[in-house]
């Protein structure tokens, strides 16, 4: 078929970003309806929401650092697994395992910051990699569906964490259900002067830099390396990859290990930068599951995930304090995810493209 010049409109309607933005717009519209039903003026409510995100240095650092960092990383974990044809629904458990590994090293290993912080992160990464790779192993060796085993592994991680938190040598004591605090040497904080200059509050932690570095590294792996090439080949067409001599089983395990590693870093940062401890869970916290939403909003592209993580994290933060119930933000996110999921339908509406081509 001869190629014809695309008009500007066609270029826009063929671009995935257009549908993401459209979905976000729809999400806000549905959120506005929910707000109106709940008796709030949507325009003032949204105005307040944005004010709560951008209005003060303190709020900005909550929105874009404390709340966004874990979602960027778990979103990246899920996006990476999508790119390689597996579905990492186990980011939740990997997050928890990463947090446990980091907190244990952070409490018990005596070392200066320059050694201790990397050690905490490495421990978390190894734990997350193992947690992901075990699932990969079960999948390739015994054909266990990764979605099922990961949901199980999420619960194993959850109860394992609660078990560790309540160990005599780990718990803080005094009837409290959390661990001892990590040593000051293990905390990741910015230099106070620098952070104030950038317009954030002193409480902001350096985890965001790790998250951004992870985005760059994952983008590089996917786009520029033979590893990424092989992972994508297996993800798109396992048969052709195997036929071409690529070891698909090995690549599935690598993909899940890397994905698990990313989610575990998120858990570690939450410990080293925000909580300084791990508490006994009353329920799953949802960092991993929300990573799925972030990955979808980010169109499974590392840079997209970075933006989506900021978007998701900041709205999550604002949702807790802009007045109306925070569930409004959850409704919006649900709608955005839904509209993105059906965006192929939206695309048909916009481009009037019949299925298939000539012949």
């Amino acid at each position, binding site marked *: *078929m*001869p*190629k*014809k010049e695309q008009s500007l409109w066609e270029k826009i309607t063929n671009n995935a970003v257009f549908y993401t933005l459209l979905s976000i717009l729809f999400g806000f519209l549905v959120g506005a309806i929910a707000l109106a039903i709940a008796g709030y003026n949507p325009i003032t409510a949204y105005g307040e929401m944005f004010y709560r995100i951008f209005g003060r240095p303190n709020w900005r650092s909550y929105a874009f650092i404390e709340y966004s960092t874990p979602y960027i990383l778990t979103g990246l974990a899920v996006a990476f697994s999508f790119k390689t044809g597996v579905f990492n629904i186990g980011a939740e458990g990997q997050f928890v395992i990463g947090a446990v590994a980091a907190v244990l090293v952070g409490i018990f290993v005596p070392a200066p910051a320059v050694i201790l912080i990397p050690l905490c992160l490495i421990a978390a990464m190894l734990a997350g990699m193992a947690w992901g790779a075990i699932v990969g192993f079960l999948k390739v060796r015994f054909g266990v569906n990764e979605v099922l085993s990961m949901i199980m592994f999420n619960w194993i991680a959850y109860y394992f964490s609660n078990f560790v938190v309540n160990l005599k040598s780990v718990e803080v004591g005094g009837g409290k259900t959390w661990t001892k605090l990590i040593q000051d040497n293990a905390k990741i904080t910015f230099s106070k002067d620098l952070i104030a200059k950038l317009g954030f509050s002193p409480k902001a932690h350096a985890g965001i830099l790790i998250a951004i570095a992870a985005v760059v590294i994952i983008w590089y792996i996917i786009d*520029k*390396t*033979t*590893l*990424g*090439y*092989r992972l*994508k*080949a297996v993800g*798109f*067409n396992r*048969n*052709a*990859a*195997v*036929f*071409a*001599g*690529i*070891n698909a089983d090995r690549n599935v395990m690598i993909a899940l290990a890397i994905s698990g590693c990313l989610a575990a870093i998120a858990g570690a940062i939450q410990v080293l930068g925000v909580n300084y401890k791990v508490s006994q869970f009353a329920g799953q916290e949802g960092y991993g599951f929300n990573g799925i939403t972030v990955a979808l909003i980010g169109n499974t592209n590392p840079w997209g995930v970075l933006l989506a993580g900021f978007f998701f994290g900041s709205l999550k933060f604002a949702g807790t304090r802009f007045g109306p119930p925070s569930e409004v933000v959850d409704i919006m996110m649900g709608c955005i995810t839904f509209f993105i999921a059906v965006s192929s339908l939206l695309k048909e509406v916009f481009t009037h493209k*019949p*299925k*298939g*081509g*000539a*012949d």
Partner: protein
Amino acid sequence: MNNKNYDLNVTTVEMKNIVKMFGSFKANDGIQLTVHKGEIHAILGENGAGKSTLMNILYGLYQPTSGEIYINGQKVVIENPNKAIELGIGMVHQHFMLVPPFTVTENIILGMEPTKSLGRVDFAKARQQVIDISKRYGLNVDPDAKIEDISVGMQQRAEILKVLYRGADILILDEPTAAITPQEIVELIQIMHNLTAEGKSIILITHKLKEIKEAADFCTIVRQGKYINTVNVDDVTEHDLASMMVGRNVEFKVNKKDITPGEVVLDVKDLHCLDYRDVEILRGFNVQVRRGEIIGIAGIDGNGQTELVEVLTGLRKATAGSITMNGKDAYNKSPKELFDMGVTSIPADRQKHGLVLEFANHDNMVIQNIDNTPFSKNGVIDRKAIFDHSHDLFEKFDIRPRGAEGNPSGSLSGGNQQKVIIAREVTNDKDLLIAVNPTRGLDVGAIEYVHRYIVEQRNKGKAVLLVSFELDEVMSLSDRIDVIFEGKIVGSVKGSEADENQLGLMMAGGGAHA
């Protein structure tokens, strides 16, 4: 053997001046088609000539930009396939529309399930209906087999049964013989004659001239979306049809120079392996391929060819026997090890095994060699090297459209997808080329091209193992033909002395060793 069941007084399908635009591209440009009751009407054209588009319009998948359609004399608008089915039109697509994990019966009744009380599906009745129809038209299928487990030929019969089950009077068969064996083709033509004898009309989309001569009454030729002619098949030769189709003179013969084969490259001895049901399918298979020769494996689908190729390419483990490549042990090695030992192949299913359709063409060009210089260094890809390599291959192998190196392989036509694979495998420059149904679904021009490259590999002193259900292809290319039946070689003849009847007999298990 012509049909002649048609009644020129009763017109069942009439399409007038059909124009179909995709954007600014005219896929159909004023096409006429008239089909009578009991007639087999072939539509002949190259890939991309607009045959499928025309049939998709008749089946309600596309709306024509302009033009009129009459069914049984009534002017109709066919908004969707349901309307087409209502009008008695049934279509068997080239790419089967079957649900792989479902059984044959479940696929056939899908959407028209006979029910018992409370809306439960009456599987016993459905199964019996399927058996009845398959008996009536001689379409032998196992109603309980899962689609994903059966051969392409079987899948096609299930597709035809599906259409018959829906009571179609006008059947559109899109490339029905692209994948099936010569015997199955003979059976299919017989079935088509049975159907027309009952007053059904058949529209046969094909680019196989021999079948048109054997089966069809009339033939409409389209080229680049334009109507060329409608001819009575008795009045024309295959050569006439081919020339009308491509618009130039076509060479059928493959030019092969005489060369003496060299040392043995592939040596397979007493090979055994199991199929998906764990039933032994290769039972003591032997073959030798030497440098500078093409060994053709002829046989009916399901006699172990698929499994043989899977074992030779490392996708399936053999259970006994020996395989050597250039004297080195190649038994049950991985695909990567075999590739490194000198095995390349043109797979039977180019979209499943040959290409990652979502990948850009330049990425597909280096799928086995991504770890090698110049395509990557220390695990980092060199995009420019890959692109330049791919650009060279596009030129050298005449892959179209030019400039599509960066587009997904899925956007190429079937013939050009095959060219990408051939360019890649030929450039790999390995000692053994295994070609499996290499011209499946391709048009005359592309077939000519594929055959030329296969013979060129032989002439360059490579060993070629050709596994094909196309007897004509095996006969015209092979230096020696080995006939496979029930998992072993039952006969072997020199290519130049091969005789279709003798081969056919051996393929059916009745042959003497030659």
